[in-house]
């Protein structure tokens, strides 16, 4: 079944693919988040639009994950604003922003039921869900595990399922929060292959990582964060060959950046 087979007959549920449910560009302006007198995000301005894969790179504690959560409307900033397609974020458009967490949350259900849940969330008629879910699981090479309880999968399989489940809602943009940070090289490769496939389909991707190698392999554009600020943004080759900021240069060279 092609992607367009997602049915428009939604039984009263909002069809998430209508243009008025677009979320791009995702923007945040002058976003500030503070805790205990420290600014975790310090006046961040960013706009995610177009195509390709943006890597948000930086050391631990730079504010990368927090920024991703703010963009997805999972965290309300102390000040500043977030806009999806120039409008305030809302629940109806939420499924158009896929999110893969560092630690995948698996529903206490089978592998296929996890995907079906996501399909039902966008209003797919119940009888169409199983075949579409099998298709999506095929993308993650998990079809043979469809009936297995999701929480019994290995870490790598769970992350692939989380990615597949996120794709089930046909997101316009997919936010990935260090999806391979706790995985072995083989599992990381599988995740990166999936990410590359998704990028090839035209889905906008934003990947948070502190893995320089992964950033080099995947990034079209790099946003480098340090101490709650985006201190550098550049096309990937430029960033890695000639970083403008000292902190970025130190990070790329593997020196300790505090």
């Amino acid at each position: 079944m092609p992607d367009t087979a997602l049915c428009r007959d939604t039984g009263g549920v909002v069809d998430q693919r209508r243009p008025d449910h677009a979320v791009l560009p995702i923007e945040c302006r002058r976003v500030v988040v503070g805790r205990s007198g420290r600014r975790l995000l310090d006046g961040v301005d960013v706009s995610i639009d177009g195509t390709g894969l943006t890597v948000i790179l930086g050391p631990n504690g730079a504010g990368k994950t927090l920024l991703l959560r703010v963009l997805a409307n999972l965290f309300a900033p102390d000040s500043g604003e977030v806009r999806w397609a120039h409008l305030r974020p809302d629940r109806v458009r939420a499924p158009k922003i896929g999110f893969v967490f560092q630690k995948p949350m698996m529903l206490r259900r089978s592998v296929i039921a996890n995907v079906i849940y996501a399909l039902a969330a966008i209003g797919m008629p119940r009888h169409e869900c199983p075949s579409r879910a099998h298709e999506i699981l095929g993308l993650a090479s998990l079809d043979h595990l469809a009936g297995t309880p999701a929480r019994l999968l290995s870490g790598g399989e769970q992350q692939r399922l989380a990615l597949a489940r996120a794709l089930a809602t046909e997101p316009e943009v997919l936010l990935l929060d260090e999806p391979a940070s706790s995985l072995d090289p083989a599992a990381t490769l599988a995740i990166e292959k999936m990410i590359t496939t998704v990028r090839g389909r035209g889905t906008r991707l934003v990947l948070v990582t502190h893995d320089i190698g992964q950033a080099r392999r995947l990034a079209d554009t790099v946003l480098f964060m340090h101490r709650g600020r985006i201190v550098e943004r550049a096309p990937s080759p430029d960033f890695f060959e000639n970083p403008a900021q000292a902190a970025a240069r130190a990070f790329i060279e593997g020196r300790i950046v505090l």
Partner: protein
Amino acid sequence: MQELGAAFAEAFRLVATLDPNLREIVALSLQISLAAVGLAALIGLPLGAGLAVMRFPGRGVLVVTLNALMGLPPVVVGLLVYLLLSRAGPLGHLGLLYTPTAMVIAQAILVTPIVAALTRQTVEDMKEEYLDQLRVFGITPLGMVKTLLWDARYSLLTALLAGFGRAVAEVGAVIIVGGNINHVTRVMTTTIALETSKGNLSLALGLGVVLVTITIAANAAVMALRVSARRLAYA
């Protein structure tokens, strides 16, 4: 001492031979308690899950009240239900006093806060884990309640079991609203109380054995179910 031994022997004979009188009392007890737990589940599960998921003014007071109601004294509940259902009471015209229905109502009132409070705690714990993912899917609060109730189903069996334990072992409320009428509203606990006061220890002991066995069996069944659910990572 000999008398006690004879009573035990007679009690086991009653149980072993499935004495019709004993069977009738046990069956009525189970019917009433299971109905009460069913009713409490219908109210308590969504109520507890709703309190876990939704945020509104006064929620904290409701949660504290619900927790406090877990310790409702059965005789007070019995008295209140009696006043409601008695001929002069607001629901007296229904003619429910001294019927099994009145006993179900009384037990359900006792059990609902237990089911709701334990559900709230269980669902709230799970919500912490699920919330971000469900928000990403754009799930409504009502959808979250449904999802969390379903995914917590094995854990919630413990809440229902606690409710059943309270219902089946309860005597104060059902004796007031049921009246302990032979072949009509006589259940295990009220019979044990009556027969003990009459000195008929064998039937009281026999029912005691059945009551304890039922409680242990229910606990064992739920534990087995939870163990198998945990093995499948569903609990």
